[in-house]
């Protein structure tokens, strides 16, 4: 209580203060009461639950039709609504409420002011734009529609399901390492007409995405010094967290590569481009398309034509990205399927029935002629990863080796990967806030056209069978001569 000071000397002040104090005490008391009541109710409810469970079990065991007095709630409730408050256990139970979004007509792209193109290539078109309502800078990605969609009558399948899947998956995802989708907008004509129930074909669909300054690929190309070991760890851990989130939500990305990984100026990595992604179950549905993942990041089982695959194809790509972060250049730059596979075998060794049981049964493995394991030197079947990355720690090597296991069953899951000792050993992952920033490009982060091959096109036919017989054609002879030569890089 305030004394006789010249600041607070009136009676009113004193009164007010007293009142405040009273209120506070009252509140405290109520709180405590509430707490006690809750605890009691919970206990009671728990007891009730156990009791009724036991009763139920008993009833099920003895006579299943006796239920007349267990028919509760809805009817009785009508008459005595006040009853609800007094029946303790029920009213105090805290129910989970779901946030329910709704749907509204798609808005127009006119709400965004284009600032500059970021990228224009085979994927379609991405631009930096400003939201005129909020002033926020976003990335606008124009969905690639089949040519025919514009003349709606002639197109065969309507809007491409890849684009629709991308939208759906991004809408469902919310994770700091996955690029955020704000909304989907249409070209003005289509948007305004759809609101008035008129017919106007969609000419363009734009994804309004969170704007991220860089992509990892351009950074790797431009940087003078490679990433520090601690920086590689931060990036790889963020990638792992994003992929783990996707896999936990039954999503396969199927096109992980450095050009699809974005990095903002606060050291945050974000997975982007879900054009190849899809939902899968466990076990994964059969007859998935093999034409996924950009060639350099494509796993050996996909190259060998497996049509049932799972999250491990993404983990192979993660392995390739790990290698690329260390080496600053793509790890396995195959010119075509055959070359890609031979590069994989060069790096990871040649599969044997022990290291990859059952690989011979894959569709394209029939034409594969491998050096017979009996007379091949151990080096052929062993991995070259240790030799290729001499600066990598033993734990790092072990992780990279595991990610690049030929047998998909041996690859760790994303969650496993995050628990790997590589991330706990020194040097510790660098804190994101400490991450170096990278200069923006002259044209406001305009990205260069890259020479990375593209993800396989939609509707492209998978080659009936790829002839891998040439891979080791020269090797057998070579071996008889001066032995199998190792290439140290």
């Amino acid at each position, binding site marked *: 209580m305030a004394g006789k000071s010249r600041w607070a000397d009136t009676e009113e002040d004193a009164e007010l203060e007293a009142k405040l104090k009273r209120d506070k005490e009252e509140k405290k008391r109520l709180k405590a009461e509430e707490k006690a009541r809750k605890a009691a109710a919970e206990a009671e409810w728990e007891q009730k639950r156990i009791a009724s469970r036991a009763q139920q079990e008993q009833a099920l065991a003895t006579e299943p039709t006796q239920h007349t007095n267990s028919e509760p709630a809805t009817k009785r409730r009508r008459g005595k609504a006040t009853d609800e408050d007094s029946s303790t256990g029920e009213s105090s139970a805290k129910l989970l409420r779901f946030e329910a979004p709704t749907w509204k007509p798609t808005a127009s792209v006119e709400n965004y002011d284009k600032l500059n193109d970021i990228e224009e290539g085979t994927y379609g078109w991405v631009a930096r734009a400003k939201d005129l309502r909020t002033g926020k800078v976003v990335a606008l990605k124009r969905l690639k529609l089949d040519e025919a969609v514009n003349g709606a009558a002639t197109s065969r399948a309507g809007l491409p399901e890849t684009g*629709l899947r991308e939208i759906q998956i991004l809408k469902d995802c919310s994770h700091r390492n996955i690029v955020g989708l704000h909304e989907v907008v249409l070209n003005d004509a289509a948007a305004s007409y759809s609101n008035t129930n008129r017919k106007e074909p969609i000419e363009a669909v734009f994804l309004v995405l969170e704007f991220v300054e860089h992509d990892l690929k351009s950074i790797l190309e431009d940087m003078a010094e490679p990433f520090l070991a601690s920086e590689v760890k931060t990036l790889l851990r963020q990638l792992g967290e994003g992929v783990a989130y996707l896999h936990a939500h039954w999503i396969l990305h199927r096109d992980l590569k450095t050009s699809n990984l974005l990095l903002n100026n606060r050291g945050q990595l974000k997975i982007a481009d879900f054009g190849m992604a899809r939902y899968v179950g466990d076990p994964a549905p059969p007859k998935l398309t093999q034409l996924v993942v950009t060639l350099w990041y494509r796993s050996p089982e996909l190259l060998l034509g497996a049509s049932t695959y799972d999250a491990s194809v993404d983990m192979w790509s993660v392995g390739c990205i790990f290698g690329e972060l260390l080496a600053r250049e793509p790890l396995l730059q195959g010119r075509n399927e055959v070359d890609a596979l031979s590069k994989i075998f060069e790096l990871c060794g040649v599969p044997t029935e022990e290291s990859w049981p059952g690989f011979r049964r894959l569709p394209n493995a029939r034409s594969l002629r491998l050096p017979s394991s009996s007379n091949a030197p151990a080096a052929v079947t062993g991995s070259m990863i240790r030799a290729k990355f001499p600066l990598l720690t033993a734990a790092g090597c072990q992780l990279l080796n595991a990610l690049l296991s030929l047998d998909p069953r041996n690859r760790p899951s994303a969650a496993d990967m995050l628990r790997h000792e590589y991330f706990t050993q020194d040097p510790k992952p660098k804190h994101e806030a400490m991450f170096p920033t990278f200069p923006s490009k002259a044209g406001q982060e305009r990205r260069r056209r890259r020479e990375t091959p593209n993800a396989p096109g939609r509707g492209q036919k998978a080659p009936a069978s790829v002839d891998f017989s040439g891979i080791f054609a020269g090797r057998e002879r070579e071996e008889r001569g001066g032995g199998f030569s190792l290439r140290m890089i």
Partner: protein
Amino acid sequence: MSHITNPLATVEQLYSRSTLNALPQDLQDAIFLSMQSLTQAAGLLLRLPQSVTAQANVVLARYWVTISWPFIDEFSDISAASLFLVAKLSSHPTTPRDLCNVYAYLLSPLSPLFRPSAADPPSTTPDKTLYYLSEPGYSEAHARILALESRILCALSFDTHVALPHGLAVTYLKALDFLGVSPPAPLAQRVVGYLNTALLSPQLLYLTHQPSALAVAAIYNAAKDLGAKMPECAWWEVFDVDREELGFLVVGMRSVEGAVRAGREKDISAELHEGNMITRAGIETEMRKRGMVLGNGVNTSGSSENAAPLTEEDMLMRSLDERADQMDS
């Protein structure tokens, strides 16, 4: 979380639909019911799993609350487009050709779909020309479906996500120890039956309640029907459903059957279908008929305040409709 939650219709959406719509409620319900039944039938004939067809039903319902009379599309096309869209995004895509063929059959006089009485027994050699889809007919239907597909996507802001309650219901039954003790089939079957029937509900239950609530209500109803012993306490709260919600859904699910039956009888008497899918033209005729009846002061549809503007609106609608048709061809 998105695997067990759905976007829901807002109060405004539902309100404006029921009050600002020029179409009387009973006609709206009849149209909705026939569209949903048609979608289910097509799903069966296309050998799509019920999970796909049910999602199409929900997408259709969401689109349905966004459109109002006068409709620019034929109701059967809306059904076909929803099914096509959902199937395309699922792991069971269907080709436009199959889809159009199936709908051509279902809309032909030979289809038993809207003729439960089987007044004329099927002849031994069905007249195939009745459901033969010519090449121009096919490309026209195809174009209509694709145009509608984009319109549905626009109306839903490209969100086609549907979480079905069926899987949750099985999990709940397991949690309640109903699977594995006694033969679970009858109860589980009944639960699934309730959930599928609720897709047809004119109350649009799938747009107003989350899957968990639907699953609990279906279990409650099924258990009551079969006399299964349920826990004495408020077991639905374990599944995050309160009594209010459950009570509403229990009644809502049980009323579907009556609504369907009443709707069928009334429609047949009103010659809305004439044994066929309800069409826009049929609705128009019916409206005109009612407009006259309303003008005479004998109100059957229960919406007297609509009486005066109805004929005027009707004219406008028809002219709009005709224009739409012209644009079509």
